[in-house]
């Protein structure tokens, strides 16, 4: 039979663009991280410049490295491998280009808005609502291009790497949409539709799975493609890769609540999260072993080949991180590790080791192919590998030590049963040498990245005047014929005496359902979506619908207009990056901070502000703890109030005007979310706010401060801070309008 061959050319131009973007944004994101590390070692590096203060810089760093560096690397890797695995060019060059330029515009928008303090304050989902919509559109463009490419493919079987890509596309879409349901107040402000406990649950359902489906599954897909290519050996076990894929999909999505142990989240949810996190050991280590064993018989190549070195270390860090993740999810370990730098060390072992090194290995492998020239310097890539590896170790080892030091110092009691280190800043001081070591480690890692950039640049300069377009040939895809099932049954033919049901069962099994699904990408994707959604709903439905999860407290009332404006400033300055608002029911915490936090205290918190780190102390019970003047001077110059504090100064809060006219818009958005503000409160919101501000400002003048502060941002922030955690201490005032009862 004559087979009609079809000719086609791959689109590597888009791959080259994404590679360039990966390197450029990688450098930007890592430099932001280095500056943030310097700021923690010495607050002088905040330079009293609002746009690069730690609270605004940290989200810029995380967004840049996750969505710009890793995101562009994913697109580069997927666009290159998908075309080759499917033996077809991408369906639409136009969509590929929209994907590229749209993604870069989103990154630029993030790089502008985050330093300006325009943020939703949801970790790794800080970008404001117009950018959220742009992300959705661009992701749809990417998905459409991928699915249509699948439709015109010339290879029936979808290689396992493509399964991981599909899982990424589908799950990230689900996570992004349901975590970013908000009500806009202005073009630059919006409120999550969820509040308090439920918001925290959704945030960490997203946060954990963003790590899973943006920093794990796509990179596993890349591993399953690029590692066999680099080693020139097939993957060790395809069976293991399938098991790895499906168990990861079924288990990962449940694990989010382990980020909220001992918080106001219901215990059943946090226990379920822990259980599934521990089960994640199984698929993760299956994948790691599959990666490493792919090199079976080729280990001698690793000594000579820097690309394989990057891959081996990447997979090893994947194994380490996925061992440590479940360990940290165990409640007793989390009791010590939560809010400490241990989490930061864990994250960076995964980010720098697994994601970073896999990207570098991939870039070095891609460069000669997409630039059609030999790599400029293999020696330099070898040096990059060693500098980067030493950099990772110098980063994570001191930060593990810092995390343990913090955790132990916070929990230690002296012989008299009192906190051994009651002054929070004592614990901070102990960390300084480790923070400086991190600066060195991070600096080395960036040095390696710069070497990579230089090497790629020089390789690009060796490119031909015009790129050769290699023409490939493959037969068109034959129709997906349903496998025939022999009849009569083998069992029947053998004369075996079995019940009718056995014949039917045999018939069913011979239909090879999964083999058919694998060749039906849309149906396969539907199965992935069902796995992810059904697992999520098992946790989401009870969390949202069982009222006993969040017992209400009658004395908890909505924020006053001025407090709400102050909360906006708290969010905008990124205070949640350093301060938690969640006192856990642990003696060391109740001794240090006061009464533990109750779920019912957060019912009006859109979005929640529990935070995930304690670079500074918890603030949930800070209301009424210090006078207004203390807060003012502390914000102006923290070190003058708390010697050795590493908190940056916020002098601009004393000079920048409070935008009173925005307050009714904030309240209206809150009202739409069910916060019980009445129309009268909305109409007179500015008057109420000005009256409360004047009271605070007059008090400050009496204590010797200058006048005129009632129009400045600082009074709103003081009002908010003084309100925190005070509701449970007061009696509910019957008949008092909710918003003005303070």
């Amino acid at each position: 039979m004559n087979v009609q061959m079809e000719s086609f050319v791959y689109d590597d131009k888009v791959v080259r663009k994404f590679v360039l973007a990966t390197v450029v944004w990688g450098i930007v994101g890592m430099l932001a991280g280095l500056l943030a590390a310097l700021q923690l070692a010495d607050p002088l590096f905040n330079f009293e410049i609002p746009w690069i203060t730690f609270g605004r810089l940290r989200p810029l760093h995380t967004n840049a490295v996750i969505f710009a560096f890793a995101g562009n690397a994913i697109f580069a890797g997927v666009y290159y491998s998908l075309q080759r695995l499917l033996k077809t060019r991408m369906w639409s060059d136009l969509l590929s280009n929209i994907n590229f330029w749209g993604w870069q515009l989103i990154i630029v928008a993030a790089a502008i808005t985050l330093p300006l303090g325009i943020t939703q304050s949801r970790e790794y989902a800080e970008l404001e609502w117009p950018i959220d919509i742009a992300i959705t559109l661009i992701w749809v463009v990417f998905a459409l291009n991928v699915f249509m490419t699948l439709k015109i493919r010339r290879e029936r079987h979808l290689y396992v790497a493509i399964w991981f890509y599909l899982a990424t596309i589908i799950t990230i879409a689900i996570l992004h949409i349901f975590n970013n349901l908000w009500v806009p107040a202005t073009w630059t402000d919006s409120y999550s539709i969820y509040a308090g406990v439920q918001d925290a649950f959704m945030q960490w359902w997203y946060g954990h799975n963003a790590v899973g489906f943006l920093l794990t599954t796509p990179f596993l897909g890349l591993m399953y493609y690029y590692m066999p290519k680099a080693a020139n050996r097939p993957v060790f076990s395809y069976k293991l890769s399938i098991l790895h894929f499906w168990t990861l999909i079924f288990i990962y999505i449940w694990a989010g609540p382990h980020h909220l142990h001992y918080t106001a989240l219901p215990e059943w949810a946090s226990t379920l999260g822990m259980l599934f996190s521990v089960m994640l050991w199984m698929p993760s280590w299956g994948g790691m072993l599959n990666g490493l064993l792919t090199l079976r018989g080729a280990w001698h190549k690793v000594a000579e080949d820097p690309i394989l070195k990057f891959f081996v270390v990447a997979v090893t860090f994947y194994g380490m991180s996925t061992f440590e993740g479940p360990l940290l999810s165990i409640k007793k370990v989390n009791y010590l590790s939560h809010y400490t730098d241990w989490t930061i060390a864990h994250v960076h072992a995964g980010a720098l080791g697994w994601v970073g090194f896999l990207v570098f290995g991939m870039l070095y492998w891609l460069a000669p192919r997409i630039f059609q020239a030999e790599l400029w310097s293999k020696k330099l890539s070898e040096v990059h590998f060693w500098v980067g590896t030493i950099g990772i170790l110098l980063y994570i080892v001191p930060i593990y030590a810092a995390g343990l030091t913090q955790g132990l110092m916070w929990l230690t009691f002296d012989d008299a049963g009192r906190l051994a280190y009651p002054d929070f800043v004592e614990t901070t001081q102990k960390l300084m040498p480790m923070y400086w070591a991190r600066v060195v480690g991070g600096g080395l890692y960036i040095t390696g990245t710069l070497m990579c950039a230089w090497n790629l640049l020089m390789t690009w300069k060796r490119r031909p005047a015009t790129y050769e377009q290699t023409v490939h040939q493959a037969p068109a895809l034959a129709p997906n014929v349903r496998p025939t099932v022999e009849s009569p049954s083998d069992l029947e033919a053998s004369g075996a005496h079995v019940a009718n049901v056995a014949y039917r069962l045999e018939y069913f099994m011979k239909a090879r359902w999964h083999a058919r699904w694998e060749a039906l990408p849309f149906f396969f994707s539907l199965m992935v979506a069902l796995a992810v959604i059904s697992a999520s709903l098992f946790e989401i439905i009870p969390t949202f619908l069982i009222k006993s999860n969040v017992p209400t407290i009658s004395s908890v009332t909505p924020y006053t207009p001025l407090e709400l404006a102050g909360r906006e400033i708290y969010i905008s300055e990124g205070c949640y990056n350093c301060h938690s608002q969640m006192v856990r029911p642990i003696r060391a915490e109740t001794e240090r901070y006061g009464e533990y936090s109750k779920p019912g205290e957060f019912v009006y918190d859109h979005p929640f502000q529990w935070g995930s780190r304690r670079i500074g102390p918890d603030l949930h019970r800070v209301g009424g703890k210090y006078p207004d003047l203390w807060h003012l001077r502390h914000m102006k110059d923290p070190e003058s109030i708390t010697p050795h504090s590493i908190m940056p100064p916020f002098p601009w809060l004393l000079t920048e005007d409070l935008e009173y006219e925005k307050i009714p818009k904030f309240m209206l958005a809150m009202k739409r979310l069910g916060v019980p503000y009445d129309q009268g409160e909305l109409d007179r919101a500015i008057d109420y706010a000005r009256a409360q501000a004047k009271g605070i400002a007059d008090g400050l003048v009496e204590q010797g401060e200058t006048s005129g502060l009632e129009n400045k941002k600082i009074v709103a922030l003081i009002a908010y801070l003084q309100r925190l955690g005070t509701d449970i201490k007061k009696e509910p005032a019957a008949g008092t309008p909710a918003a003005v009862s303070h």
Partner: protein
Amino acid sequence: MRLSDIVGASGLVSWAEAGFLSAMVAVGLITVYTFARRNLDRFEQARFMPLVDDDPIVKKEDRDEHA
């Protein structure tokens, strides 16, 4: 009757248990499928898929020679 009444009446423990069991059943089925003998040939072929699409690396000297 509201949905929250139904969910509330089913109790928290039953949700967690049902979820856990369903995940375990799914993992069990996947394991059976993965190790089914009839799939071995197909999987063995699939292992090699990334290795059959190599693009050549063009060395600068080779290119200059052809120029």
